[in-house]
């Protein structure tokens, strides 16, 4: 194998996404969330120092350890030299005890605990879901404002506003990480799982073409879900079901886009690219998710993902349709309805699905038209093209547009071919 030589320009952004959030989380344990900026400043300065130092002196043998040592020293400096901060800390000590600076360490246990506390702090039900996800991306995953804007296909200004609002909300609540008790954890777990689910989907169904960001999003969400399974309070059946879903979906990450970032339809995917280790992990977590009577949307979605990774079973689509039937009872969303129709078409044929689809009549949705286009493609090419055209007009995603245009070209060719015959 060739040794992988990475330049610091390549390594740093990745390390930043990976370590910045952990560092901030641990630092926040000492400052409290009201002073999250201080924690972020120290983390940022640490990376700044790395970006200045590494190109000159070369990448240290253990880059992560280097970063943590610098962060630790910076924190010590803070405590020593910043008189203003010192007085703030003293005030804080009266209000709530801040842990002794002496025990400040970046060991794996403390990182995991701090991150867990951080996840729960960020997933504050007082914030709208969108803002929560933005904040989670920034604080938990170390994404820059630009990267978040890219992932959401929104202007950086909008993201900045969302983040500001979300942070103000957190501050208003005087939220302190240490105060989380068992009851609060149980109450918030659902919101936390929901945020991680959306975080993962943001990567998996991302509007951005940037492959690296997509994969980082998915792996970050999975990593955070894994942190939840380390704690007895948070490793519920629901958590395992979500983790299972993430593993099954991630197993197909490599196969579902081509190098240009265009989506490859499920049937055309190169199955040898599927990651078997992840599929097995998905199986393992799915089994762990089945203890007790609880069946959540994550259970059902994990089940659906399981059948997608098991191409040999003859009754695959029957199983998938059944799961969608149950899912739609738990959460009736347009996306679920359309996916159910796709499964229905596979089991009972396109005609039946078209009749059902017309009942849904979701004319403003690009996915609705894309599905109708697909369903009509076999028998009625003109109608199919019409729907695809509407889908193109409605979608905001560049990759989807490309895929749809390709499909129209294919159908037009087929049409002329039919005429010649």
């Amino acid at each position, binding site marked *: 194998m060739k040794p992988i030589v990475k330049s610091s320009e390549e390594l740093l952004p990745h390390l930043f996404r990976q370590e910045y959030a952990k560092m901030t989380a641990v630092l926040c344990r000492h400052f409290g969330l009201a002073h999250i900026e201080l924690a972020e400043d120290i983390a940022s300065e640490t990376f700044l120092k790395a970006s200045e130092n590494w190109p000159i002196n070369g990448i240290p043998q253990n880059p992560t350890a280097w970063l943590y040592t610098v962060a630790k020293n910076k924190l010590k400096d803070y405590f020593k030299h910043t008189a203003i901060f010192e007085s703030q800390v003293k005030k804080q000590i009266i209000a709530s005890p801040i842990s002794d600076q002496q025990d400040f360490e970046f060991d794996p246990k403390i990182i995991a605990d701090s991150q867990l506390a951080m996840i729960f702090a960020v997933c504050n039900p007082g914030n709208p879901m969108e803002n929560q996800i933005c904040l989670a991306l920034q604080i938990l995953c170390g994404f820059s404002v630009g990267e978040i804007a890219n992932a959401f296909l929104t202007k950086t200004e909008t993201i900045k506003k969302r983040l500001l609002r979300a942070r103000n909300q957190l501050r208003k609540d005087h939220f302190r990480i240490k105060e989380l008790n068992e009851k609060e954890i149980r109450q918030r777990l659902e919101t936390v799982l929901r945020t991680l689910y959306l975080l993962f989907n943001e990567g998996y169904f991302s509007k951005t073409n940037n492959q690296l960001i997509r994969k980082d999003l998915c792996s970050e969400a999975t990593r955070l879900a894994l942190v939840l399974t380390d704690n007895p309070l948070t490793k519920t059946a629901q958590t395992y079901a979500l983790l299972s879903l993430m593993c099954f979906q991630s197993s197909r990450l490599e196969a579902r886009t081509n190098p240009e970032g265009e989506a490859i339809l499920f049937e055309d995917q190169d199955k040898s690219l599927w990651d078997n280790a992840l599929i*097995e992990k*998905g*199986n*393992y977590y*799915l*089994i*762990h*998710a*089945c*203890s*007790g*009577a609880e*069946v959540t949307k994550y*259970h*059902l979605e*994990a*089940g*659906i993902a*399981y*059948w997608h990774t*098991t191409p040999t079973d003859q009754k695959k689509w029957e*199983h998938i349709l*059944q*799961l969608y039937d*149950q899912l739609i009872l738990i959460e009736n969303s347009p996306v679920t309805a359309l996916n159910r129709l796709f499964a229905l078409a596979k089991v009972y044929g396109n005609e039946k699905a078209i009749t059902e689809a017309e009942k849904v009549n979701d004319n403003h949705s690009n996915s609705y038209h894309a599905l109708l286009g697909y369903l009509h493609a076999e028998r009625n090419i003109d109608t199919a093209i019409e729907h695809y055209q509407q889908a193109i007009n409605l979608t905001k995603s560049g990759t989807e547009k490309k895929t749809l245009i390709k499909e129209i070209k294919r159908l037009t060719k087929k049409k002329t071919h039919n005429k010649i015959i």
Partner: protein
Amino acid sequence: MKEFALIFRLNNTTDFKPSPEQMQERMNWLAGIASQNKLADKGNTLLPTLAGAKTVRPNNVISDGPYTEIKEFISGYIVIRTDTIEEAVEIAKSNPIFKIGGNIEVREVLKRD
């Protein structure tokens, strides 16, 4: 929906420790049930080792191990959720335990509550 316990039995304690391949086969089987939303409880394995198994009988008679006369022991259980016992039996049929001479007892669960 009814619930059925599938009780696994083996004849030979040496079969108890599965090979990685057998383990994987079992996991696949279980995941298949879970992904039909028919696994009510992933159940547990019951250890057949001398140190981990005793049988208590009347008059304070206690013997080692899970068995005395018949050389058959329960190795574990799961609970599944199906409409009929026939469907539960169909699911049981595809378990890899039969390859090593084990058997499965299917029993409807009567809930206490």
